């Protein structure tokens, strides 16, 4: 492996890490603002103009807060769990092309860390490993609410992994590749080429599953404040809790990218406009995460399982069968 490639990759990784850590913070700001406006409140207004510096204030608080490791927890696992959440979220980003390739100072940059030929499988796999964050954190916390949350987390992740996998199978069959860049090329012809038109069912299934994967309302059962406090995060404080948080928000951004790339044409033909389009789509998906949080109540765990196994999975299988028949 040549040095230039190595340096380039490291730079890309650092840039992605920095940007998405910062975005996670700004994401919380937007979440609070959007939720506030939808509920006829103002949200943060006091720190900085329009409360913008609230993010910085929260960051300072998280970093300087005492790192409490309670009695009776399984120390090592307790400490490593938030790292798993954050790390897997960012690892998944490795196979996501964030922008079309562009030329910077005469050097062609591909804004993807590794264009591996099993991109989607890799992303889904790593996001699946993200389950271990809540699971281990909850089980090691010596707290019944955390334990409940861990159990719920395991059930939800494993169930909805099935939906994600099955729903994405049909588009994969159409494209014939697992690389997200190939997906993008497949839809490069314009809006009419978007997979969402030929696979609307798969799109909606994947979208629903994305809510479960990222643990957002209406499937916010693993940290359902009014039932089990903060679930797996109850015993965490300071930056360890912050890592869970960054992981959750990074996941939201990444899954938005994946959805936009697979179903909504990604960055299209790779022009500047296409890149803007991709960002707009991601912004919409992110906004939708916040939007549903303001509008919809949480479902019960049994309803969630019911929805997964009795409704979504049969639909996903039928969708695959129909896609197969049509393609034959």
């Amino acid at each position: 492996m040549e040095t230039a490639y190595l340096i380039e990759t490291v730079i890309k990784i650092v840039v992605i890490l920095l940007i998405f850590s910062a975005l996670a913070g700004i994401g919380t700001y937007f979440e609070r603002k959007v939720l506030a406006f939808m509920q006829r409140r103002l949200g943060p207004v006091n720190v900085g103009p329009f409360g913008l510096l609230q993010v910085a204030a929260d960051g300072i608080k998280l970093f300087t807060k005492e790192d409490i490791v309670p009695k009776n927890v399984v120390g090592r696992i307790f400490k490593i769990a938030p790292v798993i959440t954050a790390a897997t979220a960012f690892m998944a980003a490795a196979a996501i092309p964030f922008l079309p390739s562009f030329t910077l100072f005469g050097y062609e940059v591909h804004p993807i860390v590794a264009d591996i030929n099993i991109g989607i499988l890799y992303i889904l796999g790593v996001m699946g490993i993200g389950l271990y964050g809540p699971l281990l954190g909850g089980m090691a916390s010596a707290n019944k609410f955390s334990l409940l949350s861990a159990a719920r987390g395991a059930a939800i992740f494993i169930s909805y992994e099935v939906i994600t996998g099955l729903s994405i199978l049909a588009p994969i069959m159409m494209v014939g590749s697992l690389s997200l860049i190939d997906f993008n090329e497949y839809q490069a012809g314009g809006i009419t080429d978007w997979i969402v038109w030929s696979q609307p069912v798969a799109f909606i299934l994947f979208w629903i599953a994305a809510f479960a994967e990222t643990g957002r309302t209406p499937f916010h059962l693993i940290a359902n404040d009014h039932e089990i406090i903060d679930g797996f995060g109850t015993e965490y404080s300071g930056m360890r809790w912050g890592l869970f948080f960054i992981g959750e928000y990074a996941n939201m951004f990444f899954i938005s990218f994946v959805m936009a790339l697979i179903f909504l044409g990604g960055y299209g033909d790779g022009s500047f406009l296409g890149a803007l389009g991709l960002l707009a789509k991601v912004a919409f998906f992110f906004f939708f995460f916040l939007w549903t949080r303001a509008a919809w109540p949480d479902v019960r765990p049994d309803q969630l399982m019911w929805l997964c196994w009795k409704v979504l999975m049969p639909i996903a299988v039928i969708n695959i069968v129909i896609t197969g028949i049509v393609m034959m």
Partner: protein
Amino acid sequence: MHNEQIEEHFKNRNVTEIDSNYYMVDIAPYPTDGWGKFKRVLKRSFRGELFVGLWVVLREMIKFDTHTIKYPEEKMPIGPRYRAVHEMKRLWESDTERCIGCGLCEKICISNCIRIDTKLDENSRKEVTEYSINLGRCIFCGYCAEVCPELAITHGGEYENASDQREHYIMYQDMLTPLDKMKAGTQLEFEGFGAVTPHEDERVKKTPLAY
């Protein structure tokens, strides 16, 4: 609502008869067989109620009609009957203190937080020497203001209190309307319990002589 309607409500508590706005919730029987349940799922899935919810919150966001009061800068107006930290009033005619040291407030206080001490002054009038209210114990029930025969002790509107200890005493001098305020004629009468109600003159009946 109109006045007659309100009065009607007092007489007839059976709301369904007066107000046609009330109606029984229509609860359809729950499906028991599989097919019925399946139909219910379909109906619930495709009725689009989720989108109604989305629209409602989006509409509120676009309207941007927030109701937040930025508290330290903005404050809600409070009613004149609000029961916050006590005040001691002065007489309009002579600017002297209204309190006659009768001790009724101390007697009635249900949390026992008023302490009053009096002595006779040189004109053989009772004079208040000590008067304190332990605000840490006070539950702001308003009994003292209600019982006071002179409308001397009343409640004020000062509700932003902080103290470095639980037993926070407020003294007579702190509660008394300052003289300059009195001279400027800006003392506010309390309208709550025990205060003179409007049109009291017309309502008052003469006490019969034989009483």
